[in-house]
Protein backbone atom coordinates (compact mmCIF):
# COMPACT_ATOMS: atom_id res chain seq x y z
CA UNK A 1 0.00 0.00 0.00
CA UNK A 2 1.34 3.45 -0.91
CA UNK A 3 2.07 6.07 1.71
CA UNK A 4 -0.67 8.31 0.31
CA UNK A 5 -3.32 5.59 0.46
CA UNK A 6 -2.35 4.51 3.95
CA UNK A 7 -2.56 8.08 5.20
CA UNK A 8 -5.96 8.62 3.58
CA UNK A 9 -7.31 5.45 5.17
CA UNK A 10 -5.98 6.26 8.65
CA UNK A 11 -7.07 9.91 8.48
CA UNK A 12 -10.62 8.83 7.62
CA UNK A 13 -10.72 6.70 10.75
CA UNK A 14 -9.07 9.29 12.97
CA UNK A 15 -11.51 12.01 11.90
CA UNK A 16 -14.62 9.84 12.10
CA UNK A 17 -17.00 11.15 14.79
CA UNK A 18 -16.94 9.47 18.19
CA UNK A 19 -19.93 7.78 19.83
CA UNK A 20 -21.90 9.72 22.41
CA UNK A 21 -19.76 8.03 25.09
CA UNK A 22 -16.66 9.38 23.33
CA UNK A 23 -15.40 6.08 21.99
CA UNK A 24 -14.54 5.05 18.47
CA UNK A 25 -17.53 3.86 16.48
CA UNK A 26 -17.91 0.16 15.81
CA UNK A 27 -18.81 0.87 12.19
CA UNK A 28 -15.98 2.44 10.23
CA UNK A 29 -15.64 4.41 7.00
CA UNK A 30 -17.67 2.87 4.18
CA UNK A 31 -19.80 0.84 6.59
CA UNK A 32 -17.02 -1.65 7.35
CA UNK A 33 -16.68 -3.02 10.88
CA UNK A 34 -14.12 -0.79 12.58
CA UNK A 35 -12.31 -3.72 14.21
CA UNK A 36 -11.59 -5.19 10.81
CA UNK A 37 -10.70 -1.78 9.35
CA UNK A 38 -8.25 -1.02 12.17
CA UNK A 39 -6.71 -4.50 12.06
CA UNK A 40 -5.91 -4.05 8.37
CA UNK A 41 -3.55 -1.15 9.10
CA UNK A 42 -2.57 -1.19 12.77
CA UNK A 43 -0.62 -3.84 14.67
CA UNK A 44 -2.03 -4.93 18.03
CA UNK A 45 0.29 -5.34 21.00
CA UNK A 46 0.15 -7.38 24.20
CA UNK A 47 -2.13 -4.81 25.89
CA UNK A 48 -4.17 -3.13 23.15
CA UNK A 49 -6.03 -4.32 20.09
CA UNK A 50 -5.64 -2.56 16.74
CA UNK A 51 -9.02 -0.95 17.39
CA UNK A 52 -7.94 0.39 20.78
CA UNK A 53 -4.68 1.79 19.43
CA UNK A 54 -6.42 3.61 16.61
CA UNK A 55 -9.06 4.81 19.05
CA UNK A 56 -6.41 6.76 20.99
CA UNK A 57 -5.85 8.93 17.92
CA UNK A 58 -9.55 9.14 17.11
CA UNK A 59 -10.29 10.47 20.60
CA UNK A 60 -7.30 12.81 20.65
CA UNK A 61 -8.45 14.35 17.39
CA UNK A 62 -11.96 15.09 18.63
CA UNK A 63 -10.91 16.26 22.07
CA UNK A 64 -8.48 18.69 20.45
CA UNK A 65 -10.84 20.20 17.88
CA UNK A 66 -13.84 20.33 20.22
CA UNK A 67 -11.68 21.96 22.87
CA UNK A 68 -10.56 24.55 20.39
CA UNK A 69 -14.14 25.35 19.34
CA UNK A 70 -15.24 25.68 22.97
CA UNK A 71 -12.38 28.08 23.60
CA UNK A 72 -13.16 30.20 20.55
CA UNK A 73 -16.96 30.33 20.89
CA UNK A 74 -17.81 30.59 24.62
CA UNK A 75 -20.78 32.86 23.89
CA UNK A 76 -22.36 30.48 21.40
CA UNK A 77 -21.79 27.67 23.85
CA UNK A 78 -23.69 29.64 26.44
CA UNK A 79 -26.58 30.24 24.05
CA UNK A 80 -26.89 26.63 22.92
CA UNK A 81 -25.91 24.90 26.13
CA UNK A 82 -22.92 22.56 26.39
CA UNK A 83 -24.56 19.42 25.00
CA UNK A 84 -26.11 21.08 21.96
CA UNK A 85 -22.97 23.10 21.31
CA UNK A 86 -20.88 19.92 21.31
CA UNK A 87 -23.31 18.16 18.96
CA UNK A 88 -23.34 21.16 16.66
CA UNK A 89 -19.52 21.30 16.61
CA UNK A 90 -19.28 17.58 15.80
CA UNK A 91 -21.63 18.08 12.84
CA UNK A 92 -19.80 21.22 11.69
CA UNK A 93 -16.33 19.67 11.93
CA UNK A 94 -17.47 16.50 10.18
CA UNK A 95 -18.62 18.57 7.22
CA UNK A 96 -15.97 21.27 7.50
CA UNK A 97 -12.76 19.74 8.86
CA UNK A 98 -9.77 22.01 9.28
CA UNK A 99 -8.21 23.27 6.05
CA UNK A 100 -5.63 25.38 7.83
CA UNK A 101 -2.29 24.63 9.47
CA UNK A 102 -3.55 26.39 12.60
CA UNK A 103 -6.50 25.69 14.89
CA UNK A 104 -7.03 29.43 15.01
CA UNK A 105 -9.00 29.14 11.75
CA UNK A 106 -11.16 26.20 12.80
CA UNK A 107 -14.29 28.32 13.14
CA UNK A 108 -13.80 30.38 9.99
CA UNK A 109 -16.65 28.63 8.14
CA UNK A 110 -19.04 28.30 11.06
CA UNK A 111 -21.28 31.25 10.21
CA UNK A 112 -21.76 30.11 6.60
CA UNK A 113 -22.32 26.53 7.71
CA UNK A 114 -24.93 27.53 10.28
CA UNK A 115 -26.82 29.53 7.64
CA UNK A 116 -27.10 26.30 5.65
CA UNK A 117 -27.82 24.20 8.73
CA UNK A 118 -30.16 26.33 10.85
CA UNK A 119 -31.59 23.26 12.60
CA UNK A 120 -28.64 23.42 15.00
CA UNK A 121 -29.71 26.84 16.28
CA UNK A 122 -33.48 26.47 15.79
CA UNK A 123 -35.42 29.03 17.76
CA UNK A 124 -32.29 31.11 18.32
CA UNK A 125 -31.11 31.58 14.74
CA UNK A 126 -30.61 35.34 14.80
CA UNK A 127 -29.07 35.43 18.27
CA UNK A 128 -26.74 32.53 17.53
CA UNK A 129 -25.59 33.94 14.21
CA UNK A 130 -24.97 37.33 15.81
CA UNK A 131 -22.84 35.61 18.42
CA UNK A 132 -20.85 33.59 15.89
CA UNK A 133 -20.12 36.72 13.88
CA UNK A 134 -18.96 38.59 16.96
CA UNK A 135 -16.79 35.77 18.26
CA UNK A 136 -15.15 35.29 14.88
CA UNK A 137 -14.62 39.06 14.61
CA UNK A 138 -12.94 38.91 18.03
CA UNK A 139 -10.44 36.34 16.68
CA UNK A 140 -9.77 38.35 13.53
CA UNK A 141 -9.29 41.58 15.45
CA UNK A 142 -6.90 39.96 17.92
CA UNK A 143 -4.17 38.97 15.48
CA UNK A 144 -5.28 40.21 12.06
CA UNK A 145 -2.97 42.10 9.79
CA UNK A 146 -2.17 45.74 10.56
CA UNK A 147 -0.96 48.33 8.09
CA UNK A 148 1.57 51.00 9.09
CA UNK A 149 -0.10 54.05 10.58
CA UNK A 150 0.44 57.40 8.86
CA UNK A 151 2.52 59.77 10.99
CA UNK A 152 1.98 63.56 10.97
CA UNK A 153 5.54 64.23 9.74
CA UNK A 154 4.79 62.20 6.63
CA UNK A 155 2.06 64.65 5.61
CA UNK A 156 2.70 67.57 3.32
CA UNK A 157 0.55 69.73 1.04
CA UNK A 158 1.03 67.46 -1.97
CA UNK A 159 0.34 64.21 -0.17
CA UNK A 160 -2.84 65.49 1.52
CA UNK A 161 -4.54 65.85 -1.84
CA UNK A 162 -3.73 62.22 -2.62
CA UNK A 163 -4.85 60.85 0.73
CA UNK A 164 -7.17 57.88 0.74
CA UNK A 165 -8.50 57.00 4.16
CA UNK A 166 -8.73 53.32 4.96
CA UNK A 167 -9.69 51.30 7.97
CA UNK A 168 -7.11 48.91 9.38
CA UNK A 169 -7.75 45.44 7.95
CA UNK A 170 -8.09 43.91 11.40
CA UNK A 171 -11.00 46.20 12.33
CA UNK A 172 -14.33 44.37 12.17
CA UNK A 173 -17.64 46.15 11.64
CA UNK A 174 -20.82 44.42 12.71
CA UNK A 175 -24.50 45.18 12.46
CA UNK A 176 -26.18 42.99 15.04
CA UNK A 177 -29.73 42.28 16.12
CA UNK A 178 -28.95 41.47 19.75
CA UNK A 179 -26.58 43.11 22.26
CA UNK A 180 -24.37 40.01 22.21
CA UNK A 181 -21.30 42.03 23.13
CA UNK A 182 -22.51 42.07 26.73
CA UNK A 183 -22.93 38.31 26.67
CA UNK A 184 -19.45 37.69 25.28
CA UNK A 185 -17.86 39.91 27.87
CA UNK A 186 -19.76 38.06 30.56
CA UNK A 187 -18.71 34.68 29.12
CA UNK A 188 -15.07 35.76 29.13
CA UNK A 189 -15.37 37.13 32.61
CA UNK A 190 -16.87 33.86 33.83
CA UNK A 191 -14.05 31.84 32.29
CA UNK A 192 -11.52 33.79 34.29
CA UNK A 193 -13.43 33.30 37.53
CA UNK A 194 -12.89 30.34 39.81
CA UNK A 195 -15.49 29.70 42.44
CA UNK A 196 -14.42 27.85 45.54
CA UNK A 197 -17.98 26.81 46.29
CA UNK A 198 -20.07 24.55 44.05
CA UNK A 199 -23.21 26.20 45.38
CA UNK A 200 -22.02 29.61 44.21
CA UNK A 201 -21.01 28.12 40.88
CA UNK A 202 -24.45 26.59 40.39
CA UNK A 203 -26.14 29.89 41.25
CA UNK A 204 -23.97 31.68 38.72
CA UNK A 205 -24.77 29.04 36.10
CA UNK A 206 -28.50 29.56 36.56
CA UNK A 207 -28.02 33.32 36.38
CA UNK A 208 -26.10 32.91 33.10
CA UNK A 209 -28.90 30.81 31.60
CA UNK A 210 -31.39 33.45 32.64
CA UNK A 211 -29.17 36.15 31.10
CA UNK A 212 -29.35 34.39 27.73
CA UNK A 213 -33.09 33.80 27.94
CA UNK A 214 -33.68 37.39 29.00
CA UNK A 215 -31.65 38.90 26.19
CA UNK A 216 -34.02 41.09 24.15
CA UNK A 217 -33.51 42.01 20.52
CA UNK A 218 -31.81 45.36 20.07
CA UNK A 219 -30.17 46.62 16.93
CA UNK A 220 -26.57 47.58 17.64
CA UNK A 221 -23.62 48.65 15.52
CA UNK A 222 -20.30 47.49 16.75
CA UNK A 223 -16.64 48.07 15.98
CA UNK A 224 -14.36 45.25 17.07
CA UNK A 225 -10.89 46.73 17.10
CA UNK A 226 -7.67 46.58 19.03
CA UNK A 227 -5.76 49.19 20.92
CA UNK A 228 -2.41 48.57 22.55
CA UNK A 229 -2.76 44.95 21.47
CA UNK A 230 -6.02 44.34 23.34
CA UNK A 231 -9.35 43.77 21.61
CA UNK A 232 -12.22 46.15 22.36
CA UNK A 233 -15.90 46.17 21.43
CA UNK A 234 -17.22 49.66 20.85
CA UNK A 235 -20.83 50.44 20.06
CA UNK A 236 -21.26 53.16 17.46
CA UNK A 237 -24.12 55.00 15.80
CA UNK A 238 -25.65 53.90 12.52
CA UNK A 239 -24.06 56.86 10.68
CA UNK A 240 -20.61 56.06 12.05
CA UNK A 241 -21.08 52.45 11.05
CA UNK A 242 -22.08 53.41 7.50
CA UNK A 243 -19.10 55.70 7.11
CA UNK A 244 -16.62 53.12 8.45
CA UNK A 245 -18.19 50.43 6.31
CA UNK A 246 -17.76 52.60 3.23
CA UNK A 247 -14.12 53.28 4.14
CA UNK A 248 -13.56 49.59 4.74
CA UNK A 249 -14.92 48.86 1.30
CA UNK A 250 -12.65 51.47 -0.27
CA UNK A 251 -15.45 53.91 -1.20
CA UNK A 252 -13.61 56.69 -3.05
CA UNK A 253 -16.49 59.13 -2.66
CA UNK A 254 -15.27 59.63 0.90
CA UNK A 255 -11.89 60.90 -0.27
CA UNK A 256 -11.09 64.52 0.63
Amino acid sequence: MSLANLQKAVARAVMQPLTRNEHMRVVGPGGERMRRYAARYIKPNDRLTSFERLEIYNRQYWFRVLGSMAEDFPGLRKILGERRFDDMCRAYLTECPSRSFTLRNLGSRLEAWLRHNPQWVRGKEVLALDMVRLEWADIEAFDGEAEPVLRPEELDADSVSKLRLRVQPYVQLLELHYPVDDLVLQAKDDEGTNFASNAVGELRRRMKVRAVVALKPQKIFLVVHRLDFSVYFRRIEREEYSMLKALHGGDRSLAP
Partner: protein
Amino acid sequence: MPANRFNNFTNYGIGIGLRAPHYDHILTRKPVVDWFEIIFENFMIGGGRPLRILDQILEQYRVVQHGVSMYFGSANRPDREHLRRLKSLVKRTGTPWVSDHLCWGSVDGTYTHDLLPMPYTFEAAKITAQKLRYVRDFLEVPIAVENVSSYAEYHVSEMTEWEFLNEVVERADCGILLDVNNIYVSSQNHNFNPLTYINSVPADRVAQIHIAGHSKFEKFILDTHDHPVLDPVWKLYDRAIQRAGHTATLLEWDDRIPSFQEVHDEALRADRFLADTQLKVAV
Protein backbone atom coordinates in the same frame (compact mmCIF):
# COMPACT_ATOMS: atom_id res chain seq x y z
CA MET B 1 29.85 17.89 18.92
CA PRO B 2 27.10 20.11 20.42
CA ALA B 3 27.82 22.94 17.99
CA ASN B 4 27.34 21.38 14.60
CA ARG B 5 26.09 22.26 11.16
CA PHE B 6 22.58 21.13 12.09
CA ASN B 7 22.18 23.79 14.76
CA ASN B 8 24.16 26.37 12.80
CA PHE B 9 27.28 25.91 14.92
CA THR B 10 25.63 27.38 18.00
CA ASN B 11 26.25 26.38 21.59
CA TYR B 12 22.88 26.96 23.22
CA GLY B 13 22.34 25.70 26.75
CA ILE B 14 19.07 25.01 28.53
CA GLY B 15 15.92 26.67 27.25
CA ILE B 16 12.21 26.50 27.87
CA GLY B 17 9.15 26.76 25.67
CA LEU B 18 7.70 30.27 25.43
CA ARG B 19 4.09 29.98 26.59
CA ALA B 20 1.38 32.64 26.99
CA PRO B 21 0.87 32.27 30.79
CA HIS B 22 4.50 33.32 31.29
CA TYR B 23 4.56 36.38 29.01
CA ASP B 24 4.03 38.93 31.77
CA HIS B 25 6.58 37.34 34.08
CA ILE B 26 9.24 37.23 31.38
CA LEU B 27 8.68 40.77 30.18
CA THR B 28 8.49 42.35 33.62
CA ARG B 29 11.00 40.27 35.60
CA LYS B 30 13.38 39.56 32.73
CA PRO B 31 14.63 36.24 34.13
CA VAL B 32 17.94 34.85 32.92
CA VAL B 33 17.07 32.17 30.38
CA ASP B 34 19.53 30.94 27.79
CA TRP B 35 16.94 30.68 25.02
CA PHE B 36 13.26 30.22 24.28
CA GLU B 37 11.62 27.87 21.84
CA ILE B 38 8.49 29.17 20.13
CA ILE B 39 5.77 27.19 18.41
CA PHE B 40 6.07 29.03 15.13
CA GLU B 41 2.47 28.49 13.99
CA ASN B 42 1.36 30.77 16.84
CA PHE B 43 3.27 33.62 15.25
CA MET B 44 2.45 33.08 11.59
CA ILE B 45 -0.26 35.71 11.81
CA GLY B 46 -0.91 39.18 10.48
CA GLY B 47 -0.22 41.19 13.62
CA GLY B 48 -1.48 41.92 17.10
CA ARG B 49 -0.29 41.02 20.56
CA PRO B 50 1.47 37.70 19.80
CA LEU B 51 3.86 39.35 17.35
CA ARG B 52 4.37 42.32 19.66
CA ILE B 53 5.29 39.92 22.49
CA LEU B 54 7.63 38.05 20.18
CA ASP B 55 9.42 41.24 19.20
CA GLN B 56 9.82 42.20 22.86
CA ILE B 57 11.21 38.75 23.64
CA LEU B 58 13.60 38.99 20.69
CA GLU B 59 15.00 42.23 22.07
CA GLN B 60 16.35 40.32 25.07
CA TYR B 61 16.47 36.61 24.33
CA ARG B 62 17.53 34.08 21.74
CA VAL B 63 14.65 32.26 20.10
CA VAL B 64 14.47 28.98 18.20
CA GLN B 65 11.51 28.06 16.01
CA HIS B 66 9.75 24.74 16.49
CA GLY B 67 6.71 23.64 14.52
CA VAL B 68 3.82 21.22 14.72
CA SER B 69 2.28 21.48 11.27
CA MET B 70 4.89 21.02 8.55
CA TYR B 71 4.16 17.30 8.44
CA PHE B 72 7.36 16.26 6.70
CA GLY B 73 5.93 12.76 6.40
CA SER B 74 2.64 13.66 4.70
CA ALA B 75 2.49 12.36 1.16
CA ASN B 76 1.37 15.73 -0.19
CA ARG B 77 3.73 18.36 -1.58
CA PRO B 78 4.83 21.23 0.68
CA ASP B 79 2.61 24.31 0.64
CA ARG B 80 4.76 27.11 -0.84
CA GLU B 81 2.59 29.89 0.59
CA HIS B 82 2.95 28.37 4.05
CA LEU B 83 6.71 28.20 3.56
CA ARG B 84 6.85 31.82 2.38
CA ARG B 85 5.16 32.93 5.60
CA LEU B 86 7.43 30.70 7.64
CA LYS B 87 10.51 32.14 5.95
CA SER B 88 9.36 35.62 6.80
CA LEU B 89 9.19 34.57 10.47
CA VAL B 90 12.62 32.94 10.21
CA LYS B 91 14.02 36.30 9.12
CA ARG B 92 12.23 38.05 11.96
CA THR B 93 13.51 35.74 14.71
CA GLY B 94 16.94 34.94 13.32
CA THR B 95 16.44 31.37 14.49
CA PRO B 96 19.65 29.37 13.96
CA TRP B 97 17.68 26.26 13.03
CA VAL B 98 14.06 25.20 12.56
CA SER B 99 12.60 21.97 13.86
CA ASP B 100 9.40 20.01 13.34
CA HIS B 101 8.27 16.42 13.73
CA LEU B 102 8.93 13.21 11.87
CA CYS B 103 5.26 12.51 11.36
CA TRP B 104 2.29 13.19 9.15
CA GLY B 105 -1.02 14.87 9.95
CA SER B 106 -2.61 16.28 6.83
CA VAL B 107 -4.16 14.68 3.76
CA ASP B 108 -5.03 16.65 0.62
CA GLY B 109 -5.15 19.93 2.55
CA THR B 110 -7.24 18.62 5.45
CA TYR B 111 -5.51 18.84 8.83
CA THR B 112 -5.84 16.51 11.82
CA HIS B 113 -3.72 18.79 14.03
CA ASP B 114 -2.08 15.70 15.45
CA LEU B 115 1.39 14.18 15.12
CA LEU B 116 0.49 10.86 13.51
CA PRO B 117 3.13 8.11 13.40
CA MET B 118 4.87 7.22 10.16
CA PRO B 119 4.86 3.80 8.57
CA TYR B 120 8.52 2.82 8.69
CA THR B 121 8.93 2.01 5.02
CA PHE B 122 11.59 2.90 2.48
CA GLU B 123 9.01 4.70 0.37
CA ALA B 124 8.01 6.87 3.34
CA ALA B 125 11.65 7.59 4.16
CA LYS B 126 12.31 8.70 0.59
CA ILE B 127 9.26 10.98 0.41
CA THR B 128 9.96 12.47 3.82
CA ALA B 129 13.61 13.13 3.02
CA GLN B 130 12.67 14.84 -0.25
CA LYS B 131 10.33 17.13 1.63
CA LEU B 132 12.93 17.90 4.29
CA ARG B 133 15.46 18.87 1.65
CA TYR B 134 12.93 21.04 -0.12
CA VAL B 135 11.97 22.86 3.09
CA ARG B 136 15.58 23.36 4.13
CA ASP B 137 16.53 24.77 0.73
CA PHE B 138 13.50 27.04 0.71
CA LEU B 139 14.01 28.38 4.23
CA GLU B 140 17.80 28.53 3.92
CA VAL B 141 18.26 27.43 7.50
CA PRO B 142 19.23 24.04 8.97
CA ILE B 143 16.34 21.70 9.75
CA ALA B 144 16.14 19.27 12.64
CA VAL B 145 13.50 16.56 12.63
CA GLU B 146 12.00 15.37 15.92
CA ASN B 147 11.01 11.80 16.78
CA VAL B 148 7.40 11.67 18.01
CA SER B 149 5.77 9.60 20.73
CA SER B 150 3.34 7.07 19.29
CA TYR B 151 0.57 4.74 20.31
CA ALA B 152 0.22 2.69 17.13
CA GLU B 153 2.41 0.82 14.65
CA TYR B 154 1.60 -0.23 11.10
CA HIS B 155 1.70 -3.68 9.55
CA VAL B 156 3.50 -2.27 6.51
CA SER B 157 6.57 -1.11 8.47
CA GLU B 158 9.80 -2.55 7.17
CA MET B 159 12.19 -1.39 9.90
CA THR B 160 12.32 -0.09 13.48
CA GLU B 161 11.57 3.53 14.32
CA TRP B 162 15.23 4.36 14.94
CA GLU B 163 16.26 2.72 11.68
CA PHE B 164 13.62 4.83 9.95
CA LEU B 165 14.85 8.00 11.63
CA ASN B 166 18.41 7.21 10.53
CA GLU B 167 17.27 6.44 6.99
CA VAL B 168 15.43 9.77 6.76
CA VAL B 169 18.15 11.99 8.19
CA GLU B 170 20.88 10.35 6.10
CA ARG B 171 18.83 10.76 2.92
CA ALA B 172 17.89 14.35 3.79
CA ASP B 173 21.24 15.18 5.36
CA CYS B 174 19.43 16.98 8.16
CA GLY B 175 19.68 17.22 11.92
CA ILE B 176 17.79 15.48 14.70
CA LEU B 177 15.81 17.01 17.51
CA LEU B 178 16.08 14.08 19.89
CA ASP B 179 13.09 13.94 22.21
CA VAL B 180 14.10 11.54 24.96
CA ASN B 181 10.66 11.64 26.58
CA ASN B 182 9.09 10.57 23.28
CA ILE B 183 11.56 7.71 23.04
CA TYR B 184 10.60 6.59 26.54
CA VAL B 185 6.85 6.87 25.86
CA SER B 186 7.11 4.91 22.60
CA SER B 187 9.37 2.29 24.17
CA GLN B 188 6.72 1.56 26.77
CA ASN B 189 3.91 1.52 24.23
CA HIS B 190 5.77 -0.67 21.75
CA ASN B 191 7.93 -2.84 24.02
CA PHE B 192 11.45 -1.90 22.97
CA ASN B 193 14.52 -0.92 24.92
CA PRO B 194 14.84 2.88 24.82
CA LEU B 195 18.61 2.66 25.23
CA THR B 196 18.82 0.72 21.98
CA TYR B 197 17.13 3.70 20.31
CA ILE B 198 19.40 6.27 21.96
CA ASN B 199 22.51 4.26 21.13
CA SER B 200 21.47 3.93 17.49
CA VAL B 201 20.99 7.61 16.77
CA PRO B 202 23.85 9.26 14.87
CA ALA B 203 25.14 11.52 17.65
CA ASP B 204 26.81 13.94 15.28
CA ARG B 205 23.42 14.87 13.81
CA VAL B 206 21.76 15.79 17.12
CA ALA B 207 21.01 19.50 16.94
CA GLN B 208 18.82 19.74 20.03
CA ILE B 209 17.24 17.63 22.77
CA HIS B 210 13.71 17.78 24.19
CA ILE B 211 12.74 16.69 27.67
CA ALA B 212 9.18 16.60 29.05
CA GLY B 213 6.76 14.85 31.37
CA HIS B 214 4.20 12.20 30.46
CA SER B 215 1.18 10.44 31.97
CA LYS B 216 0.75 6.73 32.66
CA PHE B 217 -2.54 5.00 31.96
CA GLU B 218 -3.46 1.40 32.58
CA LYS B 219 -2.44 0.08 29.19
CA PHE B 220 -0.34 2.81 27.63
CA ILE B 221 1.60 6.01 28.28
CA LEU B 222 0.51 9.35 26.87
CA ASP B 223 2.84 12.21 26.00
CA THR B 224 1.02 14.95 27.90
CA HIS B 225 3.71 17.54 28.69
CA ASP B 226 1.88 18.35 31.91
CA HIS B 227 4.27 16.94 34.52
CA PRO B 228 7.86 17.31 35.64
CA VAL B 229 10.34 15.06 33.84
CA LEU B 230 10.28 11.55 35.30
CA ASP B 231 13.37 9.61 36.39
CA PRO B 232 13.51 7.12 33.50
CA VAL B 233 13.53 10.06 31.09
CA TRP B 234 16.36 11.77 32.97
CA LYS B 235 18.35 8.52 32.67
CA LEU B 236 17.82 8.53 28.92
CA TYR B 237 18.80 12.18 28.80
CA ASP B 238 21.98 11.32 30.66
CA ARG B 239 22.83 8.69 28.07
CA ALA B 240 21.91 11.01 25.18
CA ILE B 241 24.29 13.75 26.29
CA GLN B 242 27.03 11.22 27.00
CA ARG B 243 26.82 10.41 23.30
CA ALA B 244 25.97 13.79 21.79
CA GLY B 245 27.72 16.09 24.26
CA HIS B 246 26.40 19.37 25.66
CA THR B 247 23.51 19.78 23.29
CA ALA B 248 20.92 22.57 23.37
CA THR B 249 18.22 21.20 25.67
CA LEU B 250 14.64 22.32 26.02
CA LEU B 251 11.93 21.47 28.53
CA GLU B 252 8.42 21.26 27.08
CA TRP B 253 5.52 22.00 29.44
CA ASP B 254 2.30 22.63 27.52
CA ASP B 255 -0.62 21.72 29.74
CA ARG B 256 -1.48 22.56 33.34
CA ILE B 257 1.40 25.00 33.09
CA PRO B 258 2.77 26.01 36.50
CA SER B 259 4.60 29.22 37.34
CA PHE B 260 7.50 30.35 35.21
CA GLN B 261 9.88 29.67 38.08
CA GLU B 262 8.70 26.10 38.49
CA VAL B 263 9.11 25.37 34.79
CA HIS B 264 12.51 27.02 34.67
CA ASP B 265 13.73 25.20 37.79
CA GLU B 266 12.65 21.90 36.26
CA ALA B 267 14.54 22.69 33.06
CA LEU B 268 17.66 23.61 35.01
CA ARG B 269 17.70 20.15 36.58
CA ALA B 270 19.32 19.15 33.29
CA ASP B 271 22.39 21.06 34.47
CA ARG B 272 23.44 18.34 36.89
CA PHE B 273 23.59 15.79 34.07
CA LEU B 274 25.51 18.21 31.90
CA ALA B 275 27.98 18.81 34.75
CA ASP B 276 28.37 15.05 35.29
CA THR B 277 29.05 14.61 31.62
CA GLN B 278 31.73 17.26 31.73
CA LEU B 279 33.37 15.47 34.66
CA LYS B 280 33.25 12.13 32.85
CA VAL B 281 34.72 13.70 29.74
CA ALA B 282 37.45 15.38 31.86
CA VAL B 283 38.31 12.08 33.56
